[in-house]
């Protein structure tokens, strides 16, 4: 297993380099260092000298990817790409173009994101699996049909509608929780109730349908028929056998998103005023802060690769037949 993990980590290096180059090229196709300087210096009374000074101070006066005027390895290393991206591989995110310590900002902003994402994931799993099992229990009845219809309806509604509708109903009409905002410590609870409920409700349609499919697929297998033939109750069949055997695809879906929970949700955080990581990248793009953009894309890629690796490892834990080699 260790050899497999090491191999996967080594595979990740060229992927991360590729992601970095891709992000770099995309960013600088849209924004030149001059544009970045003007954005940071403001809209009024920006002189060409100020633009040059800004670029020089932050190292954006170098060539982008290849320095034809330099000698030897400097042709590669004395470039914006190398200077800005090489340290990412040591997880040194450096400072944003406005001077903030990116690592510190990430460490501060990931907790509010997690405060929403973890309850949404756990409660969502509980609700979706329970509901899917219920539908599976009542399969081919009106409950099943109407539940699928309900799931399709829930899936068809935009996430934004849940947010605005939820805020309108729960906060504006019923006055039960604040519309938006956040606080640290236990004070955060009242601000998290609504986004978590909305996150869970918004995910019921897709989640339940997916799990229902998994359960129904298992339910028609021979071992289930055998269990029933031996006189096992339906609840035992569902909870002990069907659920257990449907765990592999469920785990695949869940474990892969675990690391990405850090990254937050842009729309939810924006509407609920949650100071998480979701809006961090988007804000950085609109401010043309390349330092943050590259760091967040890099972090997202690392977490995704880590998530896939975790998924593979988790396979071995839930299914003894799977061996990593």
């Amino acid at each position: 297993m260790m050899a497999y993990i090491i191999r996967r980590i080594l595979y990740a290096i060229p992927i991360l380099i590729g992601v970095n180059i891709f992000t770099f090229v995309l960013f600088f196709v849209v924004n030149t260092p001059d544009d970045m300087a003007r954005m940071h210096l403001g809209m009024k009374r920006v002189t060409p000298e100020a633009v040059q000074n800004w670029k020089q101070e932050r190292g954006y006066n170098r060539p982008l990817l290849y320095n034809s005027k330099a000698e030897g390895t400097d042709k590669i290393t004395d470039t914006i790409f190398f200077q800005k991206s090489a340290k990412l591989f040591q997880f040194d995110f450096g400072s944003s173009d406005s001077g903030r310590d990116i690592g510190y900002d990430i460490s501060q902003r990931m907790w509010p994101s997690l405060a929403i994402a973890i309850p949404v994931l756990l409660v969502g799993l509980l609700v979706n699996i329970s509901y899917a099992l219920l539908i599976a229990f009542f399969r081919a009845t009106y409950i099943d049909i109407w539940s699928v219809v309900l799931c399709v309806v829930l899936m068809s509604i935009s996430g934004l509608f849940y947010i605005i509708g939820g805020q309108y109903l729960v906060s504006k009409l019923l006055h039960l929780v604040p519309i938006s905002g956040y606080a640290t410590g236990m004070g955060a609870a009242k601000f998290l109730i609504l986004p978590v409920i909305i996150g869970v409700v918004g995910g019921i349609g897709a989640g339940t349908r997916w799990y229902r499919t998994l359960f129904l697929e298992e339910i028609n297998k021979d071992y289930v028929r055998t269990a029933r033939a031996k006189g096992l109750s339906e609840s035992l069949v569902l909870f002990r056998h069907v659920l257990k055997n449907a765990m592999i695809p469920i785990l695949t879906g869940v474990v892969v998103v675990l690391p990405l929970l850090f990254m937050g949700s842009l729309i939810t955080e924006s509407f609920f005023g949650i100071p998480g990581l979701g809006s961090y990248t988007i804000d950085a793009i609109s401010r043309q802060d390349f330092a943050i953009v590259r760091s967040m894309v890099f972090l997202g890629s690392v977490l995704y690769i880590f998530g896939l690796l975790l998924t593979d490892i988790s396979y071995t834990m839930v299914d003894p037949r799977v061996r990593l080699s």
Partner: protein
Amino acid sequence: MGTVPENDTLEKNSQHMMDRNGRVWLSGVGLMAIFFAVLLSGCDQTALNSPYSRAESEQNIVYSSFSERPKHLDPVRSYSSNEYTFLGQIYEPLLQYHYLKRPYQLVPLVAEQVPVPRYLDAAGAVLPEDADEKDIATSEYEIRVRKGVRYQPHPAFATGKGGDYTYHSLSSDRIAAANKLSDFFETGSREMTAADYIYQIKRLANPRLHSPIAGLIGQYIIGFKEFGKEIVAATEKQQQATGSERPYVDLREIPLEGVQQTGRYSFRIRVRGKYPQLVYWMAMPFFSPMPWEADRFYSQPGMDKRNINLNWYPVGTGPFMLSENNPNLRMVLERNPNFYGEHYPDHGEKQDASTGLLRDAGKTMPFIDKAIYSLEKESIPYWNKFLQGYYDTSGVSSDSFDQAVQFSDLGEVGLTDAMRKKGIDLLTAVTTSIFYMGFNMADPVIGGESERSRLLRRAISIAVDMEENISIFSNGRGVAAQGPIPPGIFGYRTGAAGINQYIYDVVDGKPKRKSIAVAKELLDKAGYPNGRDAKTGQALTLYFDTSSAGPDGKARLNWMRKQFEKLGVQLVIRATDYNRFQDKMRKGKAQIFMWGWNADYPDPENFLFLLYGPNSKLEHGGENASNYNNPKFNALFDRMKNMSNGPERQQIIDEMLEILRQDAPWSWGFHPKAFSLFHSWYSNVKPNLMANNTLKYKRVDPELRSKLQREWNQPIFWPVWGFILLLIVTAIPAVMVYRRHERSVAK
């Protein structure tokens, strides 16, 4: 493949499972009950939806919001209104605008009086006040600042027993252990002196600090540019000596020729020639005092990396200090305990007494203890929180306009019944800004000085119906511009004299846009009958460059295309991103465009310079985006810019406006109107679009606010109980079916 248990245990397991399911179900209901119990017990019932704690709600606090993170809080760099919302309350420049008087009037803030320049000729002899500008070689401003003004508590001032600064020579480990300013527990303060203003003016000259006004101020303050070079040299020397990338350079040790201290509380600024606009800059945060101790403290290696710097933690003498800076969540201003206590103005405009604006005349400010600004990126939650009473004031967005505002039969703006019922009040004011449609004068078709292009521009200016634009896209919140100068600024004329008669007819003393027939006639004279080139017969195609291409922008652009269609002219929209758009503007590649300008100060020079030839964007990188260059206009501008307001200046401005209206380098656009709503507990509100430091005048009635918040936000629980009941009722048949099913299996 699943595993199957032995037969003898089946019955037991089945029963066990049923019991467990029942327990799970009961636990679910129990958890829900606990959840609601916590919800109810944890919060006061009246404040379930309050984003603040009950204790905060009843305090003397102003609640407001911000939608965008302030980029810079260092007064040397800050230059936008969202930053001035905070900086204006923390730092105290030398001057300020009178809160109540109109037109806007400069009054002393920390300076003892508004400085009056003394003019000197090349030989150093004093000239009379009305001396010819050509004779004036130097203007001297003698400035005396108040005594007894003290800085907010700050670690930079903290001293030990021996008088040494506690935090000026910190070890790298100590700095690495700090994440915020409050990690330096000890604080101190000291009296502000004239030297602190000099220090800040010197900071303006530091190229590493990128002050946006350094270029402009450098043209006037004597020795400013040379001083900048000296700082660079001194910094490099220090870098070599210390190895630090950002070493501390003590600006006190480098003299700046044009700024000299003449006493503990007085200093002198010397500028080249005459520059009366300098006093307006003295009312902006650029001219705030900066203690050298703060600069020294923040420049220690590692501080910047820990995000501890002047951009994040300001040090001021103003009525408030920034006690919490979390721009991703909220910013909190708290009363500065060392504030000397300024008095509320005791006179204003005629109607101010009757509207209650002089009720606090002569009383010591500020009236509030704290201001909490919460980040609100989206307009819907922001508006709803205002309606719930959780924000004291609000603007009016397009989404909520119909809910808040209605027009009477006479076209007067008023509040809707729902707003009036809540006791909400509305104030409107025309902003000191302009959004204009510009023509690139360097363009061969639309630009130039030929009669043909001039008539074409005037025809377009008539056809583009700005009144309609304001009505459709701004809900009527704007005033069609008659020239570049907005109302409230010297040079703007009311009545028939102020109407642009190239575009409008004067009907009952009011402007009425000329008919499209007149525009077509002009187009005909320009050589484009029915929108076709008379020589070639080809349809006239013009290009509109814009960076606004979203769904909102699309409607505007379609509207714009239709305006040109009225003339038979085809308009091609060239939409691009903002970077490319700016690039086109810099290179003079755009043909027709929309642009805007917000006043820095209430002087006509600050608007007319947008059309001054030597300020053109294409040739000089200036703010004249249409690259207009009329020698006669330029000469009049040179005469007008340094004159004092008076009939002579007005006459020159009238001449300049006539030239502009005739040449039509802009189609003039509109001056937006600001609408602001505020609750009944919020008082001393008067729109002042030039002042940045208005928080100190505001007063709130926390008891009334708390009472109304309770009234408006009574929690309604029955739908929740109803939903739970519905769940239980719908679960019963399912449980029954389940049990029947289980029993049938058991048989």
